[in-house]
């Protein structure tokens, strides 16, 4: 094993401490050390967007971050989105209802990207949604269902009671 370092970080609200190899990516740390395998790895060089996580609230590709860089930072992964183990959040519900996924490989990245996007732009146009997810590749849906889900989620989030 090469050079290692102790890190402490918050993932989905839970504090973790670990000793990691300094060359380990954050994506591999989440998957292999914390066993949070919801963060998917497609290309591992920053093109596909499947590994998108929130770093201090902002979306980032976890394959392009080192785990040591997350020291004393706050991470949210797809596992941190649902309110409980048997409930989905409104964005996830909208994905299910609008056929926003098929194989599901891109879904974690899509959900994280749209979580940030809808927070910043709660009432987006279809074009704005398409631009927002331009950094997340999907091979199944042709994006149509994902765009519909995002627009539907925006409506649901504005009327949280319905």
């Amino acid at each position, binding site marked *: 094993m090469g050079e290692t370092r102790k890190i402490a970080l918050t993932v989905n609200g839970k504090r973790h401490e670990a000793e990691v190899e*300094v060359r380990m*990516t954050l994506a591999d740390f989440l998957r292999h050390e914390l066993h949070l395998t919801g963060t998917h790895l497609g290309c591992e060089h920053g093109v596909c967007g499947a590994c998108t996580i929130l770093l201090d609230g902002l979306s*980032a590709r976890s394959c392009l971050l080192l785990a040591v860089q997350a020291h004393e930072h706050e991470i949210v992964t797809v596992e941190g989105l649902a309110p409980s183990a048997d409930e989905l959040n409104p964005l996830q519900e909208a994905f299910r209802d609008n056929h926003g996924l098929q194989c599901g490989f891109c879904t974690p990245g899509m959900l994280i990207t749209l979580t940030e996007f809808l927070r910043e732009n709660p009432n987006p146009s279809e074009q704005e949604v398409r*631009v927002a997810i331009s*950094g997340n590749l999907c091979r199944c849906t042709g994006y149509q269902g994902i765009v519909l889900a995002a627009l539907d989620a925006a409506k649901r989030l504005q009327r949280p009671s319905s």
Partner: protein
Amino acid sequence: MKPPPFSYHDPTSIGDVVGLLGRLENAKLLAGGQSLMPMLNMRFVLPDHVIDLNRVDGLSFIREANGTLEIGAMTRQRELEFSDVVRRRCPLMYDAIRHIGHRQTRNRGTLGGSLCHLDPSAELVAVAAALDAKVTVTGAKGERRIDFASFPVAYMTPAIEPDELLTSAQFPFWPERHGHAFVEFSRRHGDFAIVSVAALLTEDGAGKVTRAAVTIGGVGVAPVRAKEVEQALTGQKLDDKLLREACESCRKLDAIDDVHAPSSYRQHLAAVLSRRALEQARSRLPSRATKAQ
């Protein structure tokens, strides 16, 4: 794909970075990581040391000073995108930023990383060339300032010594009432541009061009200024015929030939996109913008 083994350093001051650069052999500076990390993952680079700039104080700022916008090297592209002062003082940069990658990459990617990586198609590199920016680099002997025009020395190679780092860049303002445009052609939104053009114009009371800057990215190893176009427009009224004819000279530029596009296509794009950029910049000149309303 995993990065190769290296030693990791996360200094907190510019002085410490300079010290590490002077002491360590085969070290790479890690800024936003949107280019270096893929290169590490694919093992295109094998550094013995990675010096992470993300915890260094004093490298992230946007401020107005002496008619320029001074921006710290570690300022994220996202911060430029959402900065009021960038939008007001440097509208060309504001337009260009929205062509850079995607929201996830702009959240991390930095000004300094982009300028030092010097991808021939990079938007911020074209903006720096268009605005006649200067860059400040810091090393053991102190600071020095370099005209951006002489910053690229070869393909993806900046004029920085191994013991120096880029600390900031200064972008001179254009007058408040100027026309600007940034256009590019890429296969998909967020992809590297095949060709990009930045256009800037000012005019006098009679509607004649007093200053023109036309910068073309993606054709050479660094952005080129279309001097012939700039000269053809200066002192003239911008009618469609003049614009079209002036931009034809871009077909003579030396252009890269690679897997993405042959040089003839890049030359064609340079002419077409220059015209489009100038048309848009013209429409934003005060005389035209008022008429349009």
